[in-house]
């Protein structure tokens, strides 16, 4: 694999959230195997059902699903904005559901940041006041918190707009402020609930690039919600796909596209060109025996194993039959053949 599997940082075990009166009692009575229909018949809304997840340190973990599939509820369970009906959420070995309210306030202040779909900027505050607000709530003195805020504003590329009011900014700029604010307290866990869904497609793409750039610098542990499968594939290290409150598949974009677990997942993957997802390392012919020494046989073109087949394709334009594939240390681990690329691209 191109990356070692990261240590789990946030784990949730068998998490349930049932909206409606006496949800917990119903769950106890009917057992954890109960179907969604059965609960719905009782007038309850099973928004999250028996979710198990492990989210690694420094990973971009995307939760994908259609509207109403429970994504927002799940991510709010992770920070206990919504109180789960059952289950465990373990962060740094501590079960969050057992933490006291003041302990939760401390954890949210110092270890969690969140970006909202509709920005949730405070309309009466300037950009710099909005970004400094989480620190103000913690009681930081003014010059210190505003200095931090200015750094964050520069980081998201809004330097010069510090004194603007939210309503004077475009949607994309407002979300940059939201991002800066969520980073102000330097959290370890970064939750983003459909941060780009309210933006125009062009701006959305620009913001996705911006997000990847930020993450390459910051290396946060990220839970990113989206209902857009393309966005998920572009950004994710791993994706969890939700349907009616349950997670139906967890895997890398490649795993999900190449071997969808259910018809529901297959529906999403249908329109995705394989070549844009599949990585060179997955379809190469490995070098027999041990990988060749770095530099050996490097007369032709070569690409890293992590890059996608679509990225490798232009190298074949010159007429090469095969391209060398290098691993993380720069050693050649195999060869990508023209035939394999053509087959993959024809497959869609």
């Amino acid at each position, binding site marked *: 694999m191109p990356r070692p599997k990261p240590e789990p940082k946030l784990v949730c075990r068998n998490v349930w959230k049932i909206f409606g009166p006496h949800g917990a009692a119903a769950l106890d009575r009917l057992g954890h195997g109960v179907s969604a229909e059965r609960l719905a018949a009782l007038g309850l809304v099973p928004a999250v059902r028996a979710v198990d997840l492990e989210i690694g340190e420094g990973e971009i973990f995307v939760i994908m699903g259609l509207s109403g599939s429970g994504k927002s509820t799940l991510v*709010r369970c992770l*920070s206990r*904005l919504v109180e789960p009906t059952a289950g465990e959420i373990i962060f740094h070995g501590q079960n969050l559901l057992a933490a006291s309210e003041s302990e939760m*306030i*401390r954890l*949210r*202040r*110092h270890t*969690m*940041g*969140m970006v*909202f*779909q*509709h*920005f*949730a900027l*405070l*309309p*009466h*505050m300037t950009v710099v006041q909005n970004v400094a*607000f*989480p620190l*103000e*709530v*913690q009681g930081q003195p003014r010059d210190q918190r505003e200095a931090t805020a200015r750094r964050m504003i520069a980081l998201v590329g809004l330097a010069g707009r510090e004194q603007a009011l939210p309503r004077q900014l475009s949607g994309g700029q407002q979300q940059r402020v939201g991002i800066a604010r969520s980073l102000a*307290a330097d959290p370890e866990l970064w*939750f983003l609930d459909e941060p780009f869904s309210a933006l125009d497609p062009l701006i959305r793409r620009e913001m996705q690039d911006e997000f990847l750039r930020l993450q390459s610098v910051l290396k946060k542990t990220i839970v990113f919600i989206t209902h857009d499968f393309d966005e998920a594939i572009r950004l994710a290290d791993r994706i969890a796909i939700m349907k009616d409150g349950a997670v139906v598949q967890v895997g890398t974009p490649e795993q999900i596209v190449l071997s969808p677990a259910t018809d529901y997942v297959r529906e999403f993957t249908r329109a995705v060109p394989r070549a844009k997802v599949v990585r060179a390392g997955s379809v190469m012919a490995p070098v027999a025996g041990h990988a060749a020494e770095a530099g050996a046989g490097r007369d032709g073109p070569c690409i890293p194993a992590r890059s996608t087949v679509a990225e490798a394709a232009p190298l074949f334009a010159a007429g090469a039959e095969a391209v060398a594939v290098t691993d993380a240390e720069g050693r050649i681990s195999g060869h990508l053949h023209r035939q394999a690329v053509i087959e993959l691209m024809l497959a869609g």
Partner: protein
Amino acid sequence: MAALSPLRLRHWQGPGLWAGALALFAAFALWGRDLAPWAFDWPRKAVLPVRRPISDAVKWLMNHADLGLFTFREATRAIAAAVEFPYRLVLALLSEGGQAAGLAVPALPWVTVVGAAALLGWRAGGAGLAALVAACFGFVALFGQWDAAMVTLASVLIAVPLGVAGGLLLGVAAWRWRWLDRALVPVLDLMQTIPVFAYLVPILILFGFGPTAAVVATVIYALPPMARVTTLALARMPAETHDLGRMIGCTRRQMTWRVMVPSARDGLMVGVNQVIMLSLNMVIIASMIGAGGLGFEVLGALRRLDFGAGLEAGLAIVVLAVAMDRLSQAFAAGRGGGRLGPGLWLLAGVTLAALMLPALRDYPDGWRLSTGPFWSDVMRWINVTFHDSLEAVKDAALLGVLVPVKRFLLGLPWLGVAGLLALAGWRLGGWRLATLAGGLAVLIAATGLWEQAMITVYLCGLSVAVAMLIGLPIGILAAERDGLWQVVRLMIDTAQTLPSFVYLMPAVMLFRVGDFTAMLAIVAFAVAPAIRYTALGLRGVDPRLIEAGRAMGCTRWQILTRIKLRMALPEILLGLNQTIMFALSMLVITALVGTRDLGQEVYVALTKADAGRGLVAGLCVAFIAIIADRLIQAGAARARARLGLLP
């Protein structure tokens, strides 16, 4: 109910039921008096003994109630003192100067007051608003109403911050604790339907006669809408804002005061505007318990039948209301105007100069214009010249419509009326509504005030009918033409900011006292919502429906009658509802021109400081309002369901 026996119920519905019920009712009304006289006049012996206990309770509160650490009287004294000091201070600043709690306070020169008001206008909305506000204040000075206006302004300036702060706290508390909200809603509902005079009685007894009592009454009157607006604005905030607060680790206090309340600013400012306008309205009315100021001038003029003076004071109220409304609306819109800096320096300079030169301090007498005698002459002329035609109109209306309707209503048995109301309630909203409507009607009869209540219903009903007859066509016309709608809307917006007192003056001038005068004033006051809801309802009809109608080849008339009016029916019903509420609130004030209804009962109670009598009569008015409100709301909901509109 549907599960009970749908078949049998369906059998009962439809016009047959109503025909039967009305026939029964008519027969009973015509021939039942000998059979069951008690169903016509509630037996004197069986009148609920509620008046005296209420009066006694208030007396006991005043004289004996002990709240542990302090007595009730001490509590009211403390409240009075807390209001009194800032009031004296502001009043001294604005008008004559003098002592406030031992401090010698100089009177601000009139130019300073006008300048400060203009500067506020400049800050909130730029040059145009500044000019408007300055013109309004200048008008007051020009017509010699300055001192009275400053007394009124002082009361408003004290009452508004108290009303806003109190309403905000109450609203926030109701947002935070659901049980408090549930407990508060019916209380606020009742408070808003009880006529204003009814508030004045207990306050008069508890706080005595004078400006302090008036301010307390004003705060109590203006606070409920602020509380409501606050709760609503907070509940309407997007869930994300609340989530944000929790996510960054706000404590509950930080959440409320740092996140939610500031974010809800826009909504809250609407409430502030309401508090200001209601305060002004109430300060004028509270001249009856010693508020003084412009209201007192109008009241005095009404009593002396001195129209010139009354009209001038009335116009001063109007311009003051316009200035305050535009100012607070501009602040609420938050568009922002000019910078304050240079203006402040200018104002300070002018103030200093005026303090040095006594000649500048007071508005020069020579510049004063009194149009009072002129208006009196005009009125005399009109009354002399048109006396016969005015009298003829009045007599025709009285003899042709008012008196017969009144006779008819007074002849009805309370039992029959309660029965019919219950039936209407049952048809529109089921058993609960039936019990409410019928029960409240019986309760009114049981207080022994049935006759006054029927006079109230007669005046209110006729006025509402006339207001709807005027308002519907205007609303329909205005809905069709954008230009006209702009004009009409400006007019009704302005009309609605005017304190109800103002409407009495012209009606009295033309027709003296009596029911006809009262009806005119009520119609003038209540026509605004009739126009507004009709126009808004028609303009809100889904344009696709109109397009479909046009595609089918409907004429304009058909589109109006078959599509627009039908679809706008729920809105128009709500307009009717509002018209009734407006009419009832005005009706009580027309007691001043000698009606004999529940309003008069409250007014008499006020002059005699009889808390029980005032509250009971006030509650009866509230009951009438509640019956009308619930029945019409249910009707509107049914109409909406039938038309397939969202609730």
